[in-house]
């Protein structure tokens, strides 16, 4: 571009030279303006030349020959004329120059002429005049100060020097008002810009405006630039292929030596794969649904494989080819065998004898036999029996060893013998030192637990059926049931305060007022003068034909005592209150025969055991709380745990049931250890023990640990079977009682012995 402008400017200089020659110096400004304008024209003239260039190229090869002569001549003429016009017009009027696009052609125009030598048309460019003015760079501006800050000339009347060293005077510039007037009056003022070098406003040329306009529109500032010009196929097409290498140089070494850099890169990846940082074959997230035939294979897990076929019976001696003589059938047997139907025959062959294996014929029944066996296997259902392979020891519950649960009674220390009959009942004093035992001969013996020496003996008429010590510690006496009476007896050798309190309790000097409701039970105290230890201090006569009291049980406070009479006409549950000397029947009518009663140790509850059920009553509210069904056919005895939450029940059908009263109406455990009827069960008051006695003459001791938290089940461990009582007339151990403060047991047996079992 700079070259073009130089070239063009050289032509312009020629003109300016001419102008200089023709015009006086007084109009330098116009000259300057002209040259500038020409510059702009030359720039815009690029358009036309650029447009033409491809045409020339395209025609150069193909259209060079045909039909170019006439037109080229014409063009030559036109161009000549144009040149002339140009020169004239340029001199005449600037504005015309600006308007005509053709005038913008500043490049020397090529002329196509017929070469004289070849006779072909050729392009001829005008000669460049190689004179002094041809270098247009110096004639551009009259001010030759160069590119300096122009404010250096601010204070001077001139703005620089021309090529001849003459001052270029500052052009006159109007004030602000002139500028304004110029904008109003001069229509070109809005397209003029300040020329720094000449220090005056200069209107922009059309090319410059065009460039500005393109820049505003973000287009290429070159007006001749065509972004969509067609591609020139330089190397495609027939005959244009490059068959020879561009360079004959041998291939460089790097083309066939493996790249070290690439190797390092690959090794880095390989190392990462080895270390697992990169998964080479990552499982594809998109799961491919694989289709399969549903019915092709059978469900093998549900259907068990068929059981193996049973093995055929092994051949016996009679099936031998050479059986011993005794296996051979006789004539009759053979005949009989042949006469029978094949189904009725015992065996489906007859033993036959051959002297050697060689003589044995082919077995004619082979196919039939095979077929029958196959038929059997097919038709006979076969079941594989699953054999349970359980270690029997693993089924035994893990119980602690009895040795760790000591103490418990394990041997008989001494026996006390009743000579007059079965020792039906036995009771231990609350301090655990004395035993009162009664037999069926009417003898009640008081003896020491520790030595077994009888200290006192009372004799009554009739069987002694029940004994129970009063649980009070400040008064000492016990109740015996003899016949249809209850007798209160006082042991000898009591300390004075206890004795007097006992006496005042049982035979008070002033009787309490008689109850308003007359009771059929008579209370009779011995008078204090005539009474001695040998006789009962108080007797309670139950109504006649009520039967003998089979059980007497005390309330823990020692004021109430309950008695159960069996064998009488009516069910005789009586509750006797000592302090009021009054007896009452708590139940008007009870379903079934009452076997035993019990006071709850802590609550005002009352257990009543009939033959098959146990009912729990609340005495304070007079209502039935619950009914327990132990599943025993005939209840013989029961006892309540000292905590009051557990109950054991023994039955005549050998069963012993443990009830957790908080848990259920059904037994928590049913134990069946005895071989005969259970006669008596008892909880130890302090130790975690209970015992049961039976008609088989044995006593079984159990460890019964009851936990305070409701989650843990009671632990029941069988500890010891105590044997030593003889069974007489089918009766074994009739009653057992624990010693209060020691783990000792007392048992009264039908053989008349009362045994003391020590730990």
């Amino acid at each position: 571009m700079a070259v073009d402008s130089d070239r063009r400017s050289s032509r312009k200089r020629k003109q300016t030279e001419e102008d200089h020659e023709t015009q006086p110096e007084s109009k330098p400004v116009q000259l300057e303006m002209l040259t500038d304008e020409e510059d702009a024209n030359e720039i815009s003239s690029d358009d036309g030349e650029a447009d033409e260039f491809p045409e020339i190229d395209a025609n150069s090869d193909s259209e060079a020959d045909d039909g170019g002569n006439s037109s080229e001549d014409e063009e030559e003429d036109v161009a000549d004329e144009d040149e002339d016009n140009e020169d004239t017009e340029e001199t005449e009027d600037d504005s015309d120059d600006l308007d005509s696009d053709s005038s913008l052609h500043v490049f020397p125009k090529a002329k196509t002429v017929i070469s004289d030598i070849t006779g072909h048309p050729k392009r001829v460019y005008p000669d460049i005049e190689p004179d002094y003015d041809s270098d247009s760079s110096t004639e551009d501006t009259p001010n030759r100060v160069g590119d300096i800050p122009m404010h250096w000339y601010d204070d001077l009347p001139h703005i620089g020097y021309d090529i001849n060293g003459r001052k270029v005077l500052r052009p006159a510039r109007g004030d602000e008002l002139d500028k304004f007037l110029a904008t109003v009056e001069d229509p070109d003022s809005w397209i003029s810009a300040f020329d720094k070098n000449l220090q005056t406003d200069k209107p922009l040329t059309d090319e410059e405006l065009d460039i500005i306009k393109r820049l505003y529109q973000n287009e290429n500032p070159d007006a001749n630039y065509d972004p969509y010009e067609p591609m020139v196929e330089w190397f495609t097409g027939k005959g244009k292929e490059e068959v020879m290498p561009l360079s004959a140089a041998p291939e460089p070494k790097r083309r066939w030596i493996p790249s070290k850099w690439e190797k390092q890169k690959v090794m880095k990846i390989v190392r990462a794969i080895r270390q697992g940082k990169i998964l080479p074959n990552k499982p594809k997230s998109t799961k491919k649904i694989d289709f399969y035939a549903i019915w092709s294979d059978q469900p093998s897990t549900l259907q068990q494989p068929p059981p193996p076929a049973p093995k055929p019976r092994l051949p016996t001696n009679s099936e031998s080819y050479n059986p011993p003589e005794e296996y051979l059938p006789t004539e009759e047997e053979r005949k009989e065998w042949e006469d029978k139907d094949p189904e009725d025959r015992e065996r489906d062959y007859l033993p036959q004898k051959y002297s050697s294996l060689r003589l044995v014929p082919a077995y004619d029944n082979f196919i039939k036999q095979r077929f029958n066996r196959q038929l059997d296997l097919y038709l006979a259902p076969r079941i594989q029996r699953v054999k349970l392979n359980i270690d029997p020891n693993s089924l035994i519950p893990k119980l602690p060893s009895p040795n760790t649960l000591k103490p418990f009674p394990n041997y008989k220390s001494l026996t006390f013998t009743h000579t007059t009959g079965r020792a039906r009942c036995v009771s231990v004093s609350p301090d655990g030192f004395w035993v009162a035992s009664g037999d069926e001969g009417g003898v009640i013996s008081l003896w020491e637990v520790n030595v077994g020496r009888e200290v006192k003996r009372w004799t009554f008429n009739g069987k002694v059926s029940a004994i129970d010590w009063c649980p009070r510690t400040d008064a000492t006496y016990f109740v015996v049931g003899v016949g249809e009476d209850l007798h209160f007896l006082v042991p000898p050798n009591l300390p004075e305060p206890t004795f007097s309190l006992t006496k005042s309790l049982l035979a008070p000097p002033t009787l309490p007022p008689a109850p308003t409701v007359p009771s059929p039970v008579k209370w009779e105290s011995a008078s204090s003068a005539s009474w001695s230890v040998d006789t009962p201090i108080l007797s309670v006569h139950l109504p006649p034909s009520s039967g003998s009291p089979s059980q007497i049980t005390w309330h823990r406070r020692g004021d109430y005592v309950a008695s159960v009479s069996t064998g009488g006409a009516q069910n005789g549950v009586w509750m006797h209150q000592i302090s009021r000397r009054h007896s009452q029947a708590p139940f008007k009518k009870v379903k079934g025969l009452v076997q035993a009663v019990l006071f709850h140790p802590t609550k005002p509850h009352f257990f009543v055991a009939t033959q098959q059920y146990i009912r729990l009553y609340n005495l304070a509210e007079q209502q039935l709380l619950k009914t327990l069904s132990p599943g025993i056919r005939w209840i013989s005895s029961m006892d309540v745990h000292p905590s009051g939450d557990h109950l054991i029940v023994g039955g005549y059908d050998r069963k012993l049931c443990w009830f957790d009263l908080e848990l259920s109406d059904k037994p928590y455990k049913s134990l069946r250890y005895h071989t005969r009827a259970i006669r008596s069960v008892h909880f130890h008051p302090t130790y975690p023990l209970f015992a049961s006695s039976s008609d088989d003459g044995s006593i079984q001791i159990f460890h019964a640990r009851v936990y305070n938290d409701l989650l843990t089940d009671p632990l029941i461990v069988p500890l010891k079977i105590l044997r030593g009582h003889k069974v007489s007339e089918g009766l074994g151990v009739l009653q057992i009682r624990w010693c209060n403060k020691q783990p000792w047991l007392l048992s009264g047996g039908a053989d008349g012995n009362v045994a003391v079992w020590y730990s």
Partner: protein
Amino acid sequence: MADSSESVHSMQQPVIFTTQTQYPLPTQKFMIPTNWRRYHLSQLVNKALSLATSIPFDFIVRGEILKSSLGEWCLENGVGEEETLEIEYIESVLPPQKMTDFPHEDWVSGVLCNLQGYLLTSSYDGHIRAFDYSKNVAASSHVHNAPVTSLSLVPSPNPEDSKYTVATSSQDLTAAISSLELSSDDTGTKTAILATLHLHTAPVSSVTSNSSGTHLLTSSWDGLIGLWSTTIPSTDEVPEPEGSGNRERKKRRKVGDESKPRRKAPINVLKSHTNRVSKVIFGQEPGANTAYSCGFDSTVRVWDTDIGVSTHTIAAAEKPFLSLAVSSDGRHGLATATDRTMSLYDLRSNDSAITSASTFLHPATPSCVSLSESGNQVATGAYDGVVRVWDLRSTKGAMASVKAWDGEKKVLDVDWKRGIIGVAGEGGVEVWKVGEAVN
């Protein structure tokens, strides 16, 4: 059998003898034929010592008295013939021989063999009796109208000819001090109740006197131990019970007609037992103020009677003790319990961890125990009617056992003094002679 003994005969066992008797052998290794028995070994020791009179010895091998031949013992215990056995020999206790028996109508709860020529018994019919050796009742006194549970002789400071003081305990909640006059001539014996001791509210289980005879101890079922002086006060220290106590007093008045017994109060009461105290005894040393007691609360306690506190307690596990005997130096205590054991306790050591040195197992409840005067042997009576003599060094089996009354009658008390064992119980009293060491 003969063959085996022949084969055994060739073997010999290396043995070292030790002893604590006054017949020591020189410490050297003997090669003893393994078929030798106690008799051979005893002869060997006798010959080796060349004693004038032959003394029978018993041999203890590893805490067990040798009863079979040496070879059989080794076979049983798996001792090889190259191991050196250490055998301790003791003077043999000859098999006890029954001297006499004194039948009683009722059970006898206590017997004393202290007196020369006499035997004192206490019975469940409330009597105390004195027998001479010709089975004659020298004296009989109805002291209590309830069973007498034990008796003790109170040594008098100036021993008169034939007047003794006897303390008895009874189930009528009292103990009594009685005087007993035993005269050799037939003029008659005089017994009188001097004082009754009132403290306990439960039957008194035992009474004992110290060696100087100045103090008594009573133990009771109520867990208390009373300390009493033996002086007889001139007036009652405890007032008569009012009203209903007449009955008992009347009967007692019948017994002691002339002079009413004085009612004594205790000097001190020893309280620590939480259950029945079954036995209390004084220490044997003269002037000592220690007492020993055992009870059903499974403890053996040592008391200082001067200040009345328990100085040492041995607490066993679930062993209600029935009886107690303490060696004369107060070092060891032997207590029988209802779990059929007799335990040897070291009463001096304060370390409760090593209390029970050894345990002697019985087949029945051992109700009573008595140490011999030498202190190495002990006799126990059990409820199966057998009195067993043990050596304290041999826990595995009794040295000798005596079946009293030929049956299953309970032995309630034994007393081993002066070479005789008095056995009291259900069937009366028997006296057996036990050949202890001839000192």
